[in-house]
């Protein structure tokens, strides 16, 4: 730590510096251990806390969308509501169905929570703030993501309940189907960044041309990729309108139908953690991670930017949940295979095209940008229209007009 670095000390690096300071002041043999603990403990504290905030936000936000207040009586403005729920869940009786597979039934929530937490290892939540800077960070994320699928299936299968089985089957089918668009749309980013490391991907986006950041979402393929990614992410995390595995009106509570007490709370928690994680990845890949969109806003600490973006995506999730009805299983699958998958391939193609199109045409950078935009947008919109038509396909889906008898 030289003087220049100390002089450049900003609020941005306050946590990093704090950690270094703490590690430096621990006795040698424990430095590694303390370093690791200081890395993982914030993750394990911050995101569950965010879960509590989000649940409350969701309940109150949905309330407002539905013209009511939402929880507002437990503590000021109802902020203690999540704590009350947690206390209640802790003291509830735990029921395991007699015919269930007890071991798997017990393990499922733990696996789910474990997998959900692991995903945070590679998320850069601020400049120099990533738990593990893996070279294959994106790949690691998806590999861990598969663990959640396994856990959901474990839960549904081990309960030995018909509804939970249906839920598990739906979950597995849905998750594997949407995993492909999820990965493919990230591949476009990987292609353009040339790396699988999440920090490197953010670094590539964190520089500016005329105040505007080089976020991937500001390119046509990036925008399309981001939308596809978020749709797939919604499906991966079983959020409405893709909440079929727990589709209340059809299969009651789906795969966690037989879970009670804190195990159920863990499912709830893990589901939100997954949502944050996958949103975080979306931010990393497309929204420039911790970077600010405009250079003049770069003074705001990087970790604030990350959480602001995360919050924005959470709000979008809640908003969508408050509005849309649920899809049906076959439509969901059709949408994945006949729309999302081809579209994500198109996005890869468009990304390739973006690179190979000349950046300047006749010496003009602006003209080059316009042409690139137009060509790429055309490559994306064309198939979009065709695929959307094909999806509506045999059954014409349309607003109808009606006749009246006098």
């Amino acid at each position: 730590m030289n003087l220049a670095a100390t002089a450049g000390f900003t609020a941005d690096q306050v946590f990093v510096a704090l950690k270094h300071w703490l590690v430096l002041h621990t006795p040698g043999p424990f430095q590694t251990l303390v370093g690791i603990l200081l890395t993982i403990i914030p993750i394990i504290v911050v995101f569950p806390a965010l879960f509590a905030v989000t649940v409350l936000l969701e309940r109150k936000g949905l309330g407002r969308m539905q013209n009511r207040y939402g929880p507002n009586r437990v503590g000021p403005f109802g902020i203690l509501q999540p704590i009350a729920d947690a206390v209640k869940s802790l003291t509830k009786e735990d029921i395991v169905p007699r015919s269930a597979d007890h071991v798997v039934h017990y393990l499922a929530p733990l696996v789910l929570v474990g997998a959900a937490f692991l995903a945070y290892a590679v998320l850069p939540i601020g400049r120099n703030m990533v738990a593990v800077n893996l070279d294959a960070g994106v790949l690691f994320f998806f590999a861990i993501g598969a663990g959640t699928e396994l856990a959901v299936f474990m839960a549904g299968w081990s309960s030995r309940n018909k509804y939970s089985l249906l839920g598990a089957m739906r979950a597995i089918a849905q998750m594997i189907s949407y995993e492909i668009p999820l990965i493919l749309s990230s591949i476009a980013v990987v292609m353009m960044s040339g790396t699988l490391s999440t920090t490197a991907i953010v670094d590539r986006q964190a520089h500016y041309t005329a105040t505007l950041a080089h976020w991937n979402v500001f390119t046509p393929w990036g925008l399309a990729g981001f939308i596809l990614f978020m749709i797939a992410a919604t499906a991966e995390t079983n959020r409405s309108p893709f909440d079929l595995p727990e589709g209340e009106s059809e299969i009651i509570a789906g795969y966690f139908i037989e879970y009670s007490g804190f195990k159920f709370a863990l499912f709830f928690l893990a589901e939100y953690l997954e949502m944050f994680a996958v949103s975080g990845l979306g931010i990393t890949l497309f929204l420039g991670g911790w970077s600010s969109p405009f250079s003049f806003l770069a003074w705001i600490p990087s970790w604030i930017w990350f959480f602001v973006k995360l919050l924005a995506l959470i709000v979008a999730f809640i908003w969508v949940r408050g509005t849309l009805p649920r899809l049906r299983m076959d439509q969901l699958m059709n949408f994945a295979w006949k729309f999302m998958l081809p579209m994500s391939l198109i996005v890869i193609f468009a990304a390739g095209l973006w690179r190979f199109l000349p950046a300047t045409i006749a010496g003009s950078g602006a003209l080059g940008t316009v042409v690139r935009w137009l060509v790429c947008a055309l490559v994306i919109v064309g198939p979009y229209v065709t695929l959307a038509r094909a999806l509506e396909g045999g059954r014409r889906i349309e607003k109808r007009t009606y006749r009246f008898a006098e």
Partner: protein
Amino acid sequence: MSGTLAELESIAGPGEIMEVSMGPHHPSTHGVFRMDVRLEGEKVVRLKPVFGYLHRNHEKIAEHGAYLSAIPYTDRLDYLCSMTNNWGYVLAVEKLAGIAVPERAEYIRVIAAELTRFQNHAGLVGFLLQDMGASGTPLMYAFREREKILDLFESLSGARMMCNYMRFGGLRVDCTTGWLDEVRQLTARLPRFVDEFENLLRGNEILMARTQGTGVLSHELAINAGVTGPMLRASGVNYDIRKVDKYGIYDRFDFRVPLGDHGDVYDRYMMRILEMRETLKILEQALRGIPEGPIIDPKVRLRGLRPKAGEAYGRIESPKGELGFFLISDGSTNPYRYRVRPPSMINLTILEDMCLGQNVADVVITLGSVDIVLGEVDR
């Protein structure tokens, strides 16, 4: 991985049939309805409705009570629409005993019944979307408007849901001018609600994809199965008892009957939306034309009514369909036979036909689009 698809399938096998019982406790059976479903994967291969979980012996109780005391029980038949139930019953008694109704009472009956129809349809659409998984928002909006109508019912009859308002020969109490003004104000505001509701979901791709082509009911089967109400009209049959029987004073109002061409869930959903608009038209006309005068035939004996021996069948177009009451009198103070023709129950006859080969999720919305209330199905 070699071999053709057929070989693959033969390896995997067709999958076993799973017998699931949906209900009686299920979030979307609208009460305590049960469907014994056989599933192959998620495809429905058999569906048997089972009911009676709310069979509370309405008919038996009514046969033991006086003609008057059956009225509050009719409130609890289709507990969303007590006003129309009242009307159906008093209409049957009026036919049985030959009682005339004063004009003002007829107008107020129309107003009450159409308000009921509106809130029933709004509620149904909300519930249907709830079944589709719309996390309560449309239902909340529907109930927001429904509360306004219930407030009117409460200031008219004293109760929000169980109005017990109509009497053979007229009504229990008169409405005030203030009340009519309130109805007028509400009627003027309700179109905005319908518009918003349509904005919220009418063009929604998910809604259209899920409902169009789902639960199709052909009009031949609909007629043969005795399906009535919006469900029948969604199948394209022009049969509205308000038009056919012209009971009450419905011949004085200018309104149209919407008809569907596909008979699927979307059509049934749209029938409700369109009927809400027509209902508002009727309300406007009724509020304009309401005369002064008595509200009940003074000659009629409410207590201890003894109609001449005989029988009568009176029916009305309730929001769910043809609600009929069949009464046999033996000349005593209580009906010898009291029978309700429950539209909800008869509309369920073809539930299996509509659901076979469909997805579990379709069963739920098909049932939702039938619009059942268990109080009426089981009585």
